[in-house]
Structures are given as structure tokens and as C-alpha cells.
């Protein structure tokens, strides 16, 4: 890794350092406001207080798909434009997206418990989210299986784009499979007709969670860049000719450079 490769990420690091406190502040403010609005929102006449799970569930479900979209654009950046930050962005987004997806599944099944009487129902929406979760885990396993991140980047980018094309097909098949078996579908979650008293807290929460994603993503990209720097510095240290620089001096260089 040469210095030219690091030039662009260096500017990103400076930008991230300036942006992160503000992003964190906006996120905390929005989420606090959203939680307050959710708490004072009225109970549903059918579902009672359980409807408030929606305020967490829907933003997470929306982000679970949005993050895959972000990774797809980043993957295009890796494959087509060869932008040095693209694969950093894609790699950093995967665990965050997986976490949002997991939260969507968790809140979905907690919501389903009072409605279906079981924690899990092979409902078309939940099942699609579960498959998305599996794809996130597979992608993370792919990133983890190769030590050199630049080598893993291309494989992961191809998989991400194939996933982006395949996700609608999977969604369609699961819907078809589900209606085939269950003509009279049980109640659908988050129907379109929402009262304003629900809609406003939901929107605030959705924007809040989106900012949470941006904050976490910028922080994770910064960590990934630093991790790669440590890696290249370690490789330089390994290559240092024995005797030319004492071990303690080389360690000092790392601390200074990072």
C-alpha cells in the first residue's frame, strides 16, 4: 500500500473527525424526540400498547433494505469506478445492516407473539427479512474468510450486486409461496392506512434511525481505514531488515504515524 492510496482516505478521516460529533448529536436528539412521541402516541383500539413496537420495527425493516442499497452502490464503486473508499464503505455497512435486520426480526417476532400466539410465523414479510438476514451473514462470512481486504472486496461486491438483483425475485417467490399455502393471510403488519398520530412519531423514528445508520457507518468506515493502516504498517514492520531498526523504535513509528 503506497502513500497515494492513503491520500483520499486521509481526507475522509479528517472529515469524519469533524462530522461525527454533530451526527451523533442529531441522532440522539431525533431518537429521543421519536421515543417521546412514540410514548405519548395513543394505543391502538385492536392491538393495545403492542402497536408501539411498530415504531422500532418499521424503521429497522426499512433500514435493513436501505443498507443493502448503500452496499450495492458502494459495490458499483468498487467494480466500476475503483474508488479507494468504496470497498471500505461496503465492508463497514454489512455488520450494521445485519444488526438492523436482526432488530427488525426480533421486534417482528415480539410483535407477532400477542397476535399469532407464537414468536414465529412463516409470514411472507418476516420470511423475506429472514432471508435478507441470512444473506447479510453470508456476506460477512465472505469478508471474514479472506485476510487481505482488497482481495475480498471484489468477491463481496459481486455477491452484493447479485443479491440486489435477486432480492426482489426472492421477495416475489416468498409472497407466492406464502399465498399458495395460506390463502387467508393473517393480519398484515403496518398497513398503509395509518392515522396521523402514528405517522408522525414513525417518521421521526425513521429519520432518527437513518441518522443512526449514517453515524455508525462513518464511524465504522473510520475504524476500517485505521485497521487497514495498522495492517500495512505491520507489514512494513515485518519487512524492516533485522538490525537496521530496533523493535522498540519500529513500534514507536506506528504510534506516531497512526
Amino acid at each position, binding site marked *: 500500500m503506497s502513500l497515494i492510496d492513503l491520500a483520499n482516505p486521509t481526507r475522509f478521516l479528517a472529515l469524519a473527525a469533524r462530522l461525527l460529533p454533530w451526527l451523533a448529536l442529531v441522532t440522539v436528539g431525533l431518537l429521543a424526540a421519536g421515543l417521546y412521541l412514540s410514548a405519548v402516541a395513543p394505543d391502538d383500539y385492536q392491538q393495545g400498547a403492542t402497536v408501539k413496537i411498530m415504531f422500532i420495527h418499521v424503521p429497522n425493516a426499512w433500514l435493513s433494505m436501505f443498507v443493502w442499497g448503500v452496499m450495492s452502490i458502494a459495490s458499483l464503486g468498487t467494480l466500476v469506478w475503483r474508488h479507494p473508499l468504496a470497498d471500505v464503505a461496503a465492508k463497514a455497512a454489512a455488520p450494521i445492516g445485519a444488526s438492523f435486520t436482526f432488530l427488525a426480526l426480533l421486534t417482528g*417476532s415480539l410483535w407477532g407473539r400477542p397476535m399469532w400466539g407464537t414468536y414465529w410465523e*412463516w409470514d411472507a414479510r418476516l420470511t423475506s427479512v429472514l432471508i435478507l438476514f441470512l444473506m447479510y451473514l453470508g456476506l460477512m462470512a465472505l469478508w*471474514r*474468510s479472506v*485476510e487481505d481486504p482488497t482481495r475480498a472486496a471484489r468477491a463481496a461486491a459481486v455477491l452484493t450486486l447479485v443479491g440486489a438483483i435477486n432480492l426482489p425475485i426472492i421477495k416475489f417467490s416468498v409472497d407466492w409461496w406464502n399465498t399458495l*399455502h395460506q390463502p387467508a393471510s393473517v393480519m398484515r403488519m403496518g398497513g398503509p392506512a395509518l392515522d396521523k398520530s402514528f405517522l408522525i412519531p414513525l417518521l421521526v423514528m425513521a429519520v432518527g434511525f437513518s441518522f443512526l445508520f449514517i453515524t455508525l457507518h462513518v464511524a465504522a468506515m473510520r475504524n476500517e481505514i485505521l485497521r487497514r493502516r495498522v495492517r500495512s504498517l505491520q507489514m512494513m514492520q515485518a519487512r524492516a531488515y533485522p538490525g537496521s531498526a530496533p523493535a522498540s523504535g519500529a513500534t514507536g513509528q506506528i504510534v506516531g504515524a497512526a
Partner: protein
Amino acid sequence: MTALGALIRRDIRIALRIGGGALIGVLFFLTVVVLMPFAVGPDLALLTRLGPAILWLGALLSSLLTLDRLFTADHEDGSLDLIVMSRTPLELACAAKALAHWLAAGLPLVIATPVLGLLLNLDATATGAVALTLLAGTPALTFIGMIGAALAVTMHRGGLLLAVLVLPLSIPVLIFGVAASQAAIVGPLPFGAPFSILCALSLVSFVIGPFAAATSLRNGLD
């Protein structure tokens, strides 16, 4: 004992580091279990009835597929030569490697079982029964599969050949594992009888596996 402890620690470390395959086994297990309802339909009553069988099949396939690299990785980088030459009996070294593999790849399957039980609508008793039978039975799968992994080194082939060789050998474990789970859920057999046989199968495999694997490795190196 230092030698065996060192071997177990090393194998677990490699499995958990980047490039290690410990958690991919759990992911495979999860995927297989999630695929089942797409084949049999989302009927919860049916899934409950098939649940133990689905979980056992998933665990069986997952533990066999991760065994592929048990000895081949050490063979390719020359470590296996040194392990064979060492003052530690090869049988014990094989057993230590299998134990490390079970800790890194088999035990997570048992831990993941309650989550997957939820997907298949199993109640607490049923999930507990399946997890307990997997805890008793997956060591047998690892120690039997180890024989296939050792043969894979000899033949310079792994993957499907290993599965074809080892799957028939693991049929008894599957029979008594699923039988014990079903006994705990619906009866009519008492849980103890098939479960004891399952434990016995595991104990027998602790003896047969290392000896067969060591014999195969000793004769197979070149």
C-alpha cells in the same frame, strides 16, 4: 498434557480467527433449517412434528461439511508431518484435534438450536430435548467424521467423497438422536432408553474414531 492442550488451543484459535470456519457451520445449519419450510410448506403443526428431524439433519450435514479441512489444512502446510513424528501418541493428537473442532464448530450448533426451535414452533420441552440430544450426539458425529477427514488426506480428496463415506456411518446416531427427541416430546417410549444408546454411541466413537484416523494417517502420508 501440555502438548494436547497446546494443540486444542491452537486449533480453536485458528477456527475463530479471520479465515477460520467455525461460524460458517452455524450459518449453514441456519440456512438448511430455513430452507425446509419452503419445501414442506409453512404449516406450523407440520413443522412442529418434523422439527427434531429437521434440526438433526441440519446439524448432521453441517458438522460433516466443516470436518473437511480437519486434517487437510495441516497436511498442506506440513504441520501434519511434525504431529505424526512427535512424542505425543498420534491417537491422542487426533482426539485432541477432534475435540477442538467440536468445541469450535459442534458446540455452537447446540447453542443455536433454541433459536432455530423458535422458527420451527417447538415449545420449551421439545427445544430442550433436541438441544440435549445434539449435545450428546454431535461429538459422535465429529469423531466418526474424523475418520473420513483422515481418509481425505490419504486420497487427496475431500468434500463430497467424505460425505459419502461418513454419512452411512452416522445413521445410528441420527436414528437414536431423533428417537430420543421424539420420545421426550410425544412419547410413547421413555426418553432414557434411546438417549442412553445415543450416549453409548458417542462413547464408542471416542475410541474408534481416533484409532481409525491415526491408522489412516500413518499409512497415508507420502
